């Protein structure tokens, strides 16, 4: 979920390692199967179960742990710990709470208690009031004044908060904030817009030794959530006195809170005396500051701080929690000093958030106190400019390099806080807007603006001067990508690279060692820079490069990090040195002890080739690259690597192209006599229309080579096709695919091929019908509805395709089951093949026990499946049913429609596992927040196309005792069925109560709302319904199948099991 991403996988994995080192048995509970922490060999016992008090109590009763460590699982972990304590569970079973006490958690999270504590210890906080109703909020406004910041208590990523500039804003945000807070409490406070924002990561042990790991400065001043800010470490514009003034405050706070472990403190610091109306600033050398927020736990910022410094905060925090002192913990980097020290950086770190607005084009791009990013990238260099430019490259925005400008920007590009601000700042400088004016307008410190101006000055030199060795070297030292230098100097990127070779302008690699080179360190953690001394010569051992998956984004989540981490481990187990390249600070893969060597670099052609050349050394050969585990990011490198004659391990570049090129793939399937929905790749609208006419509507329209179904649509008629074709073509990937849209259940398999035989670990059946992106579908293993013939066809097709494509390693295939369209055959059609590991690999690995990544890596190393002990064909299904369900972050993204369609929208996943389907699906529903309690009143509004299919569902709901509310047409339908229903209008301006009222007022507890094909106006119709449901956090089903599954789970009733995953999989005896 947004606000809780992979960083907690990193923290939890580190904690488990730390426990193992201390000889403590660890029991891990998480509902997310895509994580490394839930993998075998990390914790001693793993439960993949919903994170509720009831489930946790059952686990505690069974395992009888001595203690609970909640400070490494983000806000979810802390909230659950408080709930367990308050429910008396911890006392009942004598479980000690480690790290933070309930008092501490509440002190830091309850705004009023926290503010009182800070005032007691003399630490300043902004003027504020804690209110629990609109009336109280209105009264508080007089003292606080506008603009004011509104922050709901106990919410993730500041959900429901915002900055109010007008009284109308103030009322609206206060009301939604009170609604979003589980305790109906919000803090309204004096706005510190334009102040500098800083963070300190601090640690404390049981002996009261306190240290700072890292401080960080936000490029975006106060007003933007720190998770949505560009962040620099260490701070750049603070004097020594200011740095230590804030450090003193942070240490004072962690002591007052009594935390044993890590803690994060956020500050606002006045940038200039005039901001606070100080005339006689000569009296002091420090301006006022305020404490903004404290997280009494390991946070997203601590993951960033760990990667930025090399100091493993989560690992040390876990050791402190079990009673170790800081000086008793070894510094894993130097191996000769201890954890009781403060890292010294000799480089600059820049983090940029990765926002989902490339997916959610309609989303509100403005940034405020509510976090919107799904992930982040980090880059390291010896200059700010270099780190910033590498970070921008790491975002993997394709065409959006630093030179990008919005076509509609005029002479004064908008400098308000949006995801595009860094580009707008550069564009403003290019247009000659005075730097002081830029800084004055947006509050970004002049230091940062001036650094950007240096980048722009170099752009101008590259545009106007001859490219000389000195100029090229200077540009590289400022972080310019070959590609941007090429654009500016009117050359091709490969020509720039050739010049670099000729002039010997190559990066060197320097080590992240926590100590600024003061001590000899053993960390194999490197970043590139253009200086003299290289610290990463080739080791001379046999090695392979694992290309990671970059920032977490929609369509590319931590599943791929799981694969990369497992790949590194498999290489090590095979005695091969593993080299990891990645740009994501939140992940386990960028932990320096996951691989033998870590390059923290952008995942683009330039950086990967540079580091491979570095690994090759003077005359050596570059190690083979593994491209099939890092999602589309990595697999997209295949072509460039191949073109540069760099070796690829596993499926060849040609095999990858064969699977991804529509024409070639179609020919192959025809040769193999495997059916796929009719269709073709086109480049013009004329061809699109005639193709659609020939194969018949509905058709699926999508750009080729695109991740997560971006710009993919199911199109019902020629009018719609005209509209969507332009959008698909605008993705600029060359061709647009037009396929017959076959209606039916979707099925997905992952397969492993060694070139001779093919192993299929499992088949997964989607609950939703084709048309919902596979990443947003609930997937069931093993399939519940397939005929034996269909299963055989799936195995047969997958096997022959893997062999026909020449896959070496992993492959993922998606099928649609449409017997009507294949009267003579099994009715199984191939929709898509991905010649790489998919997002279901961790899920399937866990529920089947087949170490899929390891098998694939060993195949790349030349071992066949049989040699590894695996026979071809479908792996036997165990006595369990597992349901994978998507998790969405729609509360955070205002103006984004929540209906499920061909474009992926989910940002995470959970799993429900049990002995049979009904409890498994119920657990998946609980874990994904879609559980429907008995007797929940439903609002139903279904499209004409789905009315026929909805009738069974309506009857079921009625029989389950749910009161029904429905919009006009649906209500008529329900009445016709002879079932009582209350009609509520969907016309929002024609009286009350309307649909939105019954949702907001809590009359209904769940919503079923389906839409008409791809009609945009139909979407608008139900948009208010879906948005309102999202905002009040009630289940909103936009697919009848999901709703049916939820209602089925409700009707089945009965209990579910709570067991370690291994017991489900390998039987009770283990």
């Amino acid at each position, binding site marked *: 979920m947004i606000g809780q991403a992979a960083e907690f996988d990193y923290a939890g994995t580190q904690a488990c390692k730390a426990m193992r080192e201390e000889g403590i048995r660890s029991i891990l509970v998480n509902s997310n199967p895509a994580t490394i922490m839930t993998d075998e060999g990390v914790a001693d016992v793993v439960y993949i179960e919903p994170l509720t008090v009831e489930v946790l109590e059952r686990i505690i009763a069974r395992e009888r742990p001595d203690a609970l460590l909640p400070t490494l699982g983000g806000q979810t972990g802390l909230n659950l710990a408080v709930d367990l304590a308050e429910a008396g569970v911890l006392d009942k079973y004598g479980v000690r709470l480690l790290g933070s006490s309930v008092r501490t958690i509440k002190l830091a999270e309850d705004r009023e208690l926290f503010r009182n504590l800070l005032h007691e210890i003399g630490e300043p906080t902004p003027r504020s009031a804690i209110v629990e109703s609109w009336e109280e909020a209105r009264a508080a406004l007089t003292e606080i004044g506008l603009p004011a910041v509104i922050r709901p208590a106990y919410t993730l990523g500041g959900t429901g908060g915002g900055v109010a500039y007008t009284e109308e804003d103030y009322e609206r945000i206060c009301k939604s904030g009170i609604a979003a807070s589980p305790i109906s409490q919000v803090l309204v406070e004096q706005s510190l817009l334009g102040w500098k924002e800083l963070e300190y990561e601090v640690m404390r042990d049981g002996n009261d030794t306190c*240290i700072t790991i890292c401080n960080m400065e936000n490029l975006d001043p106060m007003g933007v959530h720190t998770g949505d800010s560009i962040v620099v470490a260490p701070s750049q514009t603070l*004097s*020594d006195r200011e740095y*230590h003034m804030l450090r003193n405050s942070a240490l004072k706070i962690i002591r007052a809170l009594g935390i044993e472990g890590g803690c994060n403190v956020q500050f606002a610091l006045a940038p200039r005396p005039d901001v606070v109306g100080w005339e006689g600033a000569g009296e002091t*050398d420090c301006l006022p500051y305020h404490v903004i927020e404290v997280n009494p736990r390991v946070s997203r910022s601590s993951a960033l701080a760990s990667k930025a410094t090399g100091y493993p905060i989560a690992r040390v925090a876990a050791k402190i929690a079990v009673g170790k002192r800081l000086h008793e913990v070894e510094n894993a980097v130097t191996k000769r000093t201890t954890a009781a*020290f403060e890292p010294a950086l*000799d480089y600059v770190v820049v983090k940029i958030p990765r926002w989902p607005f490339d997916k959610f084009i309609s989303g509100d791009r403005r940034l405020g106190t509510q976090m919107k990013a799904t992930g982040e990238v980090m880059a390291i260099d010896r200059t700010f400019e270099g780190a910033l430019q590498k970070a921008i490259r790491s975002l993997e925005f394709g065409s959006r390099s630093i030179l990008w400008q919005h076509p509609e920007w005029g002479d004064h590009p908008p400098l308000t806080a949006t995801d595009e601000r860094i580009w707008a700042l550069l564009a403003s400088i290019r247009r000659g807007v005075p730097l002081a004016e830029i800084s004055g307008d947006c509050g970004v410190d002049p230091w940062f603006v001036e650094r950007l101006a240096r980048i722009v000055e170099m752009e101008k030199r590259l545009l106007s001067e001859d490219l000389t060795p000195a100029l090229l070297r200077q540009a590289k030292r400022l972080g310019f990508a070959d590609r941007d230098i090429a654009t500016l100097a009117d050359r091709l990127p490969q020509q720039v690279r050739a010049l670099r070779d000729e002039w010997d302008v190559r990066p060197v690699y320097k080590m992240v060692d926590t100590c600024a080179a003061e001590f000899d360190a053993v960390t194999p953690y490197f970043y590139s820079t253009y200086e003299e001394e290289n610290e990463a010569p080739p080791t001379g051992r046999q090695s392979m490069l694992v290309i990671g998956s970059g920032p977490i984004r929609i369509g590319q989540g931590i599943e791929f990090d799981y694969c990369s981490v497992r790949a590194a481990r498999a290489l090590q187990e095979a005695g091969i040195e593993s080299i990891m390249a990645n740009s994501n600070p939140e992940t386990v893969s960028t932990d320096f002890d996951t691989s033998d060597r870590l390059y923290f670099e952008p995942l683009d052609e330039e950086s990967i080739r540079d580091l491979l050349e570095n690994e090759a050394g003077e005359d050596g050969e570059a190690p083979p690259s593994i491209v099939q585990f890092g999602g589309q990011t990595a697999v997209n490198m295949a072509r460039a690597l191949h073109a540069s004659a760099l070796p690829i391990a596993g499926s060849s570049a040609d095999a990858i192209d064969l699977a991804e090129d529509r024409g070639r793939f179609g020919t192959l399937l025809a040769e193999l006599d495997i059916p796929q929905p009719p269709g073709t790749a086109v480049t013009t609208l004329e061809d699109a229309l005639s193709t659609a006419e020939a194969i018949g509507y509905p058709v699926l329209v999508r750009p080729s080579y695109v991740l997560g179904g971006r710009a993919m649509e199911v199109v019902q008629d020629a009018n719609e096709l005209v509209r969507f074709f332009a959008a698909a073509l605008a993705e600029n990937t060359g061709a647009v695919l037009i396929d017959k849209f076959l209606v039916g259940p979707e099925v997905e398999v992952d397969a492993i091929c060694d070139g001779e035989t093919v192993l299929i670990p499992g088949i997964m059946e989607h609950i939703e019908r084709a048309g919902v992106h596979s990443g947003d579908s609930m997937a069931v293993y093993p399939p519940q509805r397939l005929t034996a013939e269909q299963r055989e066809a799936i195995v047969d097709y997958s096997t022959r395709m893997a062999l026909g494509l020449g896959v070496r390693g992993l492959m993922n295939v998606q099928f649609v089951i449409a017997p009507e369209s294949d009267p003579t055959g099994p009715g199984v059609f191939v929709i898509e093949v991905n010649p790489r590991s998919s997002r279901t690999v961790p899920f399937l690995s866990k529920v089947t026990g087949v170490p899929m990544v390891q098998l694939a890596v060993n195949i790349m190393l030349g071992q066949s499946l049989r040699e590894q002990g695996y026979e071809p064909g479908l792996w036997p299904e165990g006595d369990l049913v597992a349901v994978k369900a998507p998790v969405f972050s729609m509360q955070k993204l205002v103006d984004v429609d929540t209906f499920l369609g061909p474009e992926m929208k989910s940002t995470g996943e959970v799993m429900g596992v049990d002995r049979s389907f009904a409890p498994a699906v119920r657990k998946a529903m609980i874990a994904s927040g879609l559980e429907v309690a008995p007797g929940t009143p439903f609002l139903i509004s279904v499209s004409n196309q789905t009315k026929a299919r909805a009738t069974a569902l309506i009857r079921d709901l009625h029989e389950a005792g749910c009161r029904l509310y429905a919009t006009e047409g649906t209500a008529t339908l329900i009445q016709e069925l002879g079932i009582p229903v209350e009609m509520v209008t969907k016309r929002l301006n024609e009286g009350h109560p309307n649909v939105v009222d019954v949702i907001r007022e809590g009359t209904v507890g769940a919503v079923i709302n389906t839409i008409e094909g791809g009609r945009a106006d139909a979407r608008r119709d139900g948009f208010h319904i879906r948005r309102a449901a999202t905002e009040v956090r009630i289940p909103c089903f936009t697919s009848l199948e999901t709703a049916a599954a939820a209602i089925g789970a409700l009707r089945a009733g009965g209990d579910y099991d709570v067991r370690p995953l291994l017991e489900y999989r390998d039987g009770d005896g283990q």
Partner: protein
Amino acid sequence: MSLLNTGVRPPARLVLADGRVFEGVGVGAAGHTTGEVVFTTAMTGYQEALTDPSFSGQILSMTFPLQGNYGTSLFSDESRQVQVRGFVVREMTDLPSHWLSVHTLHEYLEARGIPGIAEVDTRALTRHLRSRGVVMGTITRDETPEQALARLRAAPDYASIDYVSGVSTAEAYDFEDPRVPLGVAPDGGPAPHVVVVDLGVKRNIMRILRARGCTVTTVPHDTDAEAILSLRPDGVLLSPGPGDPMLLDHVVATSRALVGKTPIMGICLGHQVIGRLFGASCYKLKFGHRGANHPVRDEITGKVHITSQNHGFAIDGDHLVSPVQVAQVHLNDGTVEGLLHREEPVFTIQYHSEASPGPNDTEFLFDRFLDSVRSLRPGVR
């Protein structure tokens, strides 16, 4: 003005006595300079470091690559002049941003006649110094490496020079600072009078004492005990300073005469002097302790403090005479970081509890010092 300083800055090089050469561009004053090349890992506080007398005779390299970000202010000097001989950085900005900044770092160095060099691979330099040990070096703009090396070899070695007499005040003075009003004495009584023996004192020591309600008289390094006692001190502080403590027999002698007569706190060089007084020998560290992140364990409480350090010499605790014990040690290498006299109110620290630059975690030691001052004051005892 060019933001990139293209062609503005002349090429320059740092030549080390062992023959290693680092190329860069000249910043600060023109001309060449020679000194012992050392590095500090403190990420902030360049102006405080430049004016720290303990860096006298040294060329200072900053491991943090970006220097000059917040410019230079009128209030950040720790002594009356820049004390380093030369300054080595990866990047020096001419675009500082801070409300207190009056000059860029380049202008500041230039006006004070201090040569510097930028665009140096300072991490490579640090790695060189850490494996080879500190070494003499010279910054030059117009010489070949060979010429610079010849000049460098003719220069006297760092360890042979008495820097203390160069940095100490020539005349005793009462410390005043309009920005630091006299605080209230710890016991609320009359202001204690602390005499600071200036071996290369930093202003922040005196500011801290003043803010704690002390009047401060700072005296030259060669003031004898009789002269100090004639000032009727309530306590004496032996300050930090540069160079080899073995050159300071006269200060050892003065200290000997003060022990038992007045509470004494020794910081850094002052700590080494007291160490010598009680039998310890001194030795030179390979590359010193310079930074703001040094962990020191208090042997009595077990607590670890993060300290600011700047020293090239250390004392060997093996031959300490009995009533004096090692009370604090460096967590990284076990070096002696503090001494405690069990019978007299005398204690010392090797690190800089006055910070500036660095963390303030051990500022409470001044309170400890003033506690002993208070308990021994006439009328209180």
